[in-house]
């Protein structure tokens, strides 16, 4: 049997490769970066929602399953630059730097993931202009290293605000979908900070809190046990306050029904998820249909959530839409099974 190709080594791809290998199929895991673990690794996520386990504890075992696995050929810093459909499977060209290699594969799993929304595009929030306006992926790293300090002067903040839905549910930037993670991750960050530094006040500006399903527990705990505060309203703009030493968040508190202009020491933007550049490339390469949002679309999101509709091409993880790690891992398993069935036929 020709090997099964898994493209992307984030949670979904790692899970898919681990499963095809466990089924005994030779597997090539191709990752364009030099490291494994996808976005959580890239941005050094701290604790992971919903169980608040360190991300290394979650990703470590996944990575260990593929590294050194005799059935898995790992190709880091590599991409697929050409794909040609054969009677059965595909002939792909793997490119590593200047080196190219052609390989026949029996089935393909696309687990190419997402990119963060570029917060510069919400210019009214001053990201990139004011150093203390952070994207929440950057705060993940700070929390991970326990260095939650204002980039402007290196001082610890007294009061932090989170702005949810940045680049999500927003027609001004053309992204009407919900990112699914922003609420939970912001709340989790506020909890982590309050756990270690109860002297820092945490406020979340929200329109809806979407800690769906069992994740709601995190939201409740954040209020009850950690005193995180929630203000219903969307911040309209961020400017400088107090001679430029703090940030001013201007918005309407829709429950108070009055304008609010409150100074903060740091403002954190919960930037959404967009289809990754790698996902767009892969879609073009294999001819996988994409939806209006630019994510890969399975043939039926309820019954065939991992089938692309193209023979031998399967989908997993955030490449098909905003998704959490548990769902990405599950889909990786599903796609592995479908790819294996196809390859064996």
């Amino acid at each position, binding site marked *: 049997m020709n090997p099964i190709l898994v493209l992307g080594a984030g949670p979904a791809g790692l899970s898919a490769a681990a499963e095809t290998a466990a089924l005994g199929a030779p597997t090539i895991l191709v990752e364009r970066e030099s490291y494994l673990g996808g976005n959580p690794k890239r941005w050094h996520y701290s604790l992971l929602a919903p169980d608040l386990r360190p991300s290394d504890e979650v990703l470590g075992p996944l990575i260990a399953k593929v590294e050194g696995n005799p059935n898995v050929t790992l190709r880091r810093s590599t991409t697929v630059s050409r794909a040609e459909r054969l009677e059965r499977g595909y002939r792909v060209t793997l490119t590593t730097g200047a080196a190219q290699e052609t390989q026949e594969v029996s089935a393909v799993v696309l687990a190419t993931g997402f990119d963060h929304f570029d917060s510069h595009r919400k210019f009214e929030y001053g990201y990139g202009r004011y150093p203390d306006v952070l994207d929440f992926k950057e705060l993940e790293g700070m929390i991970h290293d326990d260095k939650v300090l204002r980039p402007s002067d290196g001082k610890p903040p007294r009061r932090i605000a989170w702005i949810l839905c940045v680049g999500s549910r927003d027609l*001004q930037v053309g992204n009407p979908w919900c990112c699914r993670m922003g609420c939970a991750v912001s709340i989790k960050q506020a909890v982590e900070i309050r756990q270690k530094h109860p002297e820092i006040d945490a406020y979340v500006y929200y329109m809806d809190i979407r800690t769906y399903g069992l994740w709601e527990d995190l939201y409740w705990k954040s209020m009850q046990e950690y005193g995180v505060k929630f203000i219903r309203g*969307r*911040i309209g*703009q961020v400017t400088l306050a107090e001679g430029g030493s703090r940030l001013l968040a201007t918005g309407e508190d829709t429950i108070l029904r009055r304008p609010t202009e409150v100074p903060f020491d740091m403002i954190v933007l919960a930037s959404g998820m967009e289809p990754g550049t790698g996902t767009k490339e892969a879609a073009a390469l294999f001819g996988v249909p994409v939806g209006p949002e630019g994510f890969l679309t399975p043939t039926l999101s309820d019954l065939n959530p991992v089938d692309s509709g193209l023979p031998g091409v399967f989908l997993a993880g955030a490449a098909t839409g905003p998704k959490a790690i548990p769902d990405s891992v599950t889909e990786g398993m599903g796609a592995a099974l479908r790819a294996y069935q196809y390859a064996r036929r």
Partner: protein
Amino acid sequence: MPIVEKSLVTVDRTEHLEIEGIDVSGDWNSFLRSRVQVDLDVRVLDWVRSQPQGDTISRCWQCGTCTAGCCLHTDYGLTDFNPRYFIYLAQVGYEEELRKYSSTIWRCVSCNKCVERCPKGVKVEEVVHTIGSYLEATGGAPESPADRFDRAYTENLLRRGILDEADLFRTYERGEGRTMPAREMLRMGLTLLRSGRLRTGPLAHRTRGWRRFGAVLRAKLEEDERRRRESAGAVARAGGGPR
């Protein structure tokens, strides 16, 4: 404890009442008006949605971004002017509450900052005006001095196609039952007249070709007004309303 919010108190006042020789005049039956919302009226939303300028109202998710940037609300401290809240009242159908803002709602200066920022693509400025139109067309709104000024202004403008400020001032103030001390008026008027900044009465500015253009404009305004009243009237008659 005294009740500060006087508008919530209803009182039956009896000025002169004597029963069997005993004077019992005074306040009877002082009740607190109920603040419980007891109905939902779908007419406002139906009508606003049926208007070409109003159909984006249903997209609103009440985030408050429009209000946060609205110059009337923030810069001019007119916190009663809250586009997000107007939309909410219209969406849900709190018509009685909405009517309290029948005159405030017209203060929008059409800067369109709200439209620029709304994440859901609500044409806030147009929607707010449409809600205002509904309130106006379905009546019952007490006319405010601002409404009367608007009318005097439009009438004045339509006459010659250019404003005759002195006349506007005279007509409006008289309509409000106010007069300015003659001496004060003379002093100010003369200064302005001498400087050539004010031309009024027979000396007033004119607009060339205004007779025909003005007639067309007037006809158009009347036509718009008639249409608006008709369709609002139709909604009001078509039942709907509180269910």
